[in-house]
């Protein structure tokens, strides 16, 4: 090695010109889109002169509502990349029937790895974390989460992980080992490049963030509920938030251990999962699914929570079977730790072990079935308004049941042996995640958007998007069941059976419809922002809501509640409205204490990113500096004493009474006018 190359290695590690994305046209385009998108965003912000505002009002904010919104924005940005990748893969498979298609195998491998990684860790997780962050403290009548600083740190760790995945489009190549990253294929012998390292550190960052989030939410739900709110007064969404947090706390460690040990294998030549020196890859698979199965329920439970709120609110009825829903959620949470083996029935263990786990898997169907019936019973004889959130919910019930039934078939080991590693499995889990998880999150987005921003989303485009998502899903994934049973392996870059062509083209059509659905979401957002003045809901209750988040202005004041509200029921806001107490003028106000903004979380995020980036490219100084900076920022923060600020009772009074005056001047509307311009966020009681 010459002196100059040694110096280069010291400064830039394994980075070199070959890291640039010029190995294929598609890669160059992808990288260009990322760079141009980033530059355009930065340019627009500069042009509007919003950097200072963004930093002061958002990036350093410790307000759970803003943190929640930033999570959802992150999720939506990553979602668009994930959808495009999905469409690219469908197109490749449709084109590659006895033909090379347009994507080389290496690139196709990167695509299914990033698609899965992004959709699970950087779409689903931030989306649900964002919704819980925004809604849950409001629903339980709290001022904020218990540890606001930690909350922001979790956000920025997740952002750092997402940024790492985005950078992998521009510098170097991502792993081709799938979202589950099984060694030894992701080991150093088979993938000596940086791909698996990107995957490892992106997941490590986000799983750290998720563990801390789970901890934060759990403490908040236990200890920060408003006076008078017992556990069994909590809304179903808060219950699912609690169960999801518990799952995060206990399911993330196996993932962290798995990725860290894989990193030891790759970086320091350890032998956990290698083929030599006694390594055992089955340990990895076991560890990964110890995380992976509870993860499925981390994703789905909050969606169940959203649907519970949506069914009750848009059926104008009290939720049917509240206690059974709560217990079903708890049972699912615990059972989810007992079924991980069904992800690797074919690994070679005894039939009796497979049978035990197969039965445990089928048991989970019982509480889930209870929930489905409860939701249907909630709609029964309700005053139903079939607006966008309920459209998502109804599509969910119909499609999710199909996914559940195919899940039961997969839980039967002999069947699993037959369809193992085929697109049948791909169809099944997309059937759980799109109608279950995604529809839930989009219903929640639609439902709570007016609360977050003060105006309703456009209903017409909302319905177009929802129906496109439903139709696109059916077209794209139902054919895969048939193809899977016919023996089409998953992750195929090329297809050698012309009989598969018709159904693959149907699936391609579905993918295009899904892309159109994503487009409709974007159009809806633009249209809604343009027409926001005619859709404002300052009084805060556009849907005749039942839970506490609707009892405050839209958008809510930063302290959430000016005074504590009396709580006597599990539909606390409905109770307040029925008693005529919803918009009472409080006699006394108190000073409120809120956390000051802090730059520490953003610094931790940037430092975490630097550390991970340094590790990926073997840039020692950057990795060490990043780690030191992250911990240094946290320690420095612990020496800060002036971390809170006071909002005087007089200020609270002024703001709250101004809002009450506005409410008094607002005309209450019936549910017939719900989507019209007359709905300013005050609901007329009665049907």
């Amino acid at each position: 090695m010459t002196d100059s190359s040694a110096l280069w290695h010291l400064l830039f590690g394994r980075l070199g010109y070959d890291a640039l994305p010029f190995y294929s046209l598609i890669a160059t385009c992808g990288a260009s889109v990322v760079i141009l998108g980033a530059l355009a965003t930065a340019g627009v912000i500069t042009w509007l002169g919003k950097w200072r505002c963004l930093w002061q009002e958002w990036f350093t904010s410790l307000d759970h509502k803003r943190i929640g919104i930033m999570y959802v924005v992150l999720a939506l940005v990553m979602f668009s990349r994930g959808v495009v990748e999905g469409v690219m893969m469908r197109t490749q498979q449709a084109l590659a029937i006895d033909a090379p298609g347009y994507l080389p195998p290496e690139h196709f491998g990167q695509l299914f790895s990033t698609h899965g990684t992004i959709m699970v860790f950087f779409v689903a997780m931030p989306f649900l974390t964002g919704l819980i962050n925004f809604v849950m403290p409001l629903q339980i009548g709290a001022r904020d989460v218990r540890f606001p600083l930690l909350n922001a740190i979790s956000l920025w760790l997740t952002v750092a992980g997402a940024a790492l995945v985005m950078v992998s489009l521009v510098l170097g190549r991502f792993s081709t080992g799938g979202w589950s990253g099984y060694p030894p294929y992701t080991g150093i012998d088979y993938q000596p490049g940086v791909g698996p390292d990107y995957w490892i550190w992106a997941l490590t960052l986000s799983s750290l963030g998720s563990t801390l989030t789970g901890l934060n939410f759990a403490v908040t739900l236990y200890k920060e509920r408003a006076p008078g709110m017992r556990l069994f007064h909590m809304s179903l969404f808060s219950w699912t938030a609690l169960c999801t947090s518990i799952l995060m706390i206990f399911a993330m460690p196996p993932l962290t251990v798995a990725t860290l040990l894989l990193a030891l294998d790759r970086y320091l030549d350890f032998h956990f999962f290698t083929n030599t020196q006694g390594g055992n890859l089955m340990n990895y698979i076991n560890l990964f699914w110890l995380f992976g199965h509870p993860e499925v329920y981390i994703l789905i439970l909050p969606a169940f929570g959203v649907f519970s709120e949506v069914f009750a609110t848009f059926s104008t009825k009290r939720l049917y079977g509240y206690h059974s829903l709560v217990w079903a959620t708890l049972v699912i949470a615990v059972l989810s730790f007992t079924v991980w083996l069904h992800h690797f029935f074919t690994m070679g263990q005894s039939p009796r072990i497979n049978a035990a786990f197969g039965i445990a898997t089928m048991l989970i169907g019982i509480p889930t079935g209870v929930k489905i019936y409860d939701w249907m019973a909630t709609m029964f004889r309700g005053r139903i308004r079939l607006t966008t959130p309920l459209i998502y919910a109804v599509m969910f019930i119909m499609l999710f049941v199909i996914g559940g039934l195919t899940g039961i078939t997969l839980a039967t080991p002999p069947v699993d042996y037959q369809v193992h590693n085929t697109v049948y499995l791909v169809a099944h889990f997309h059937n759980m995640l799109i109608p279950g998880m995604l529809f839930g999150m989009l219903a929640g987005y639609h439902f709570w958007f007016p609360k977050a921003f003060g105006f309703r989303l456009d209903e017409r485009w909302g319905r177009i998007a929802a129906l496109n998502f439903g139709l696109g899903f059916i077209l794209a994934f139902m054919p895969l069941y048939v193809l899977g049973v016919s023996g089409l392996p998953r992750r195929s870059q090329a297809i050698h059976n012309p009989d598969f062509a018709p159904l693959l083209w149907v699936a391609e059509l579905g993918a295009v419809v899904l892309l159109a659905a994503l487009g409709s979401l974007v159009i809806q957002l633009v249209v809604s922002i343009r027409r926001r003045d005619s859709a404002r809901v300052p009084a805060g209750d556009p849907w005749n809501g039942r839970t506490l988040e609707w009892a405050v202005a839209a958008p809510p004041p930063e302290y959430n509640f000016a005074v504590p509200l009396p709580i006597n029921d599990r539909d606390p806001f409905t109770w307040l409205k029925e008693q005529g107490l919803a918009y009472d003028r409080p006699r006394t106000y108190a000073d409120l204490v809120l956390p000051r903004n802090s730059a520490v979380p953003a610094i931790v995020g940037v430092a975490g990113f630097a550390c991970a980036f340094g590790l990926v490219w073997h840039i020692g100084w950057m990795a060490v500096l990043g780690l030191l900076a992250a911990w240094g920022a946290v320690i420095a923060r612990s020496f800060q004493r002036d971390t809170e600020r006071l909002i005087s009772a007089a200020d609270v009074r002024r703001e709250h009474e101004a809002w009450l005056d506005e409410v008094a001047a607002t005309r209450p509307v019936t549910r017939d006018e719900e989507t019209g311009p007359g709905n300013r966020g005050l609901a007329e009681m009665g049907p």
Partner: protein
Amino acid sequence: MKRDDYRRELASYVIGLVLAVTLSLIPIGLVLFPTWPRGTTLGVIFGLGLLQILVHLRCFLHISLGRSHRHDLYLLLFTSLILVLMVVGSLIVLGDLHHRMG
């Protein structure tokens, strides 16, 4: 009153230390001077280890059935449940694989 509390708590730490040291030294002695068959000794070692963990929880971490807040106790019990599920499950699965492929 304060004085009594101090004594009581100090006693808890002292008892904890004495028990912990004893419970560590016995198994070490069993390894140095093996008297029983390996399986039996191993069982005793693990049993004493578990007992020592309980001593630590009681005397150093002040977890008890009656006095502590219920949340903490439930948390600990739930963690133990998940921990046992994961560890025992992994050992059964990988042991079985080892047996079938070994």
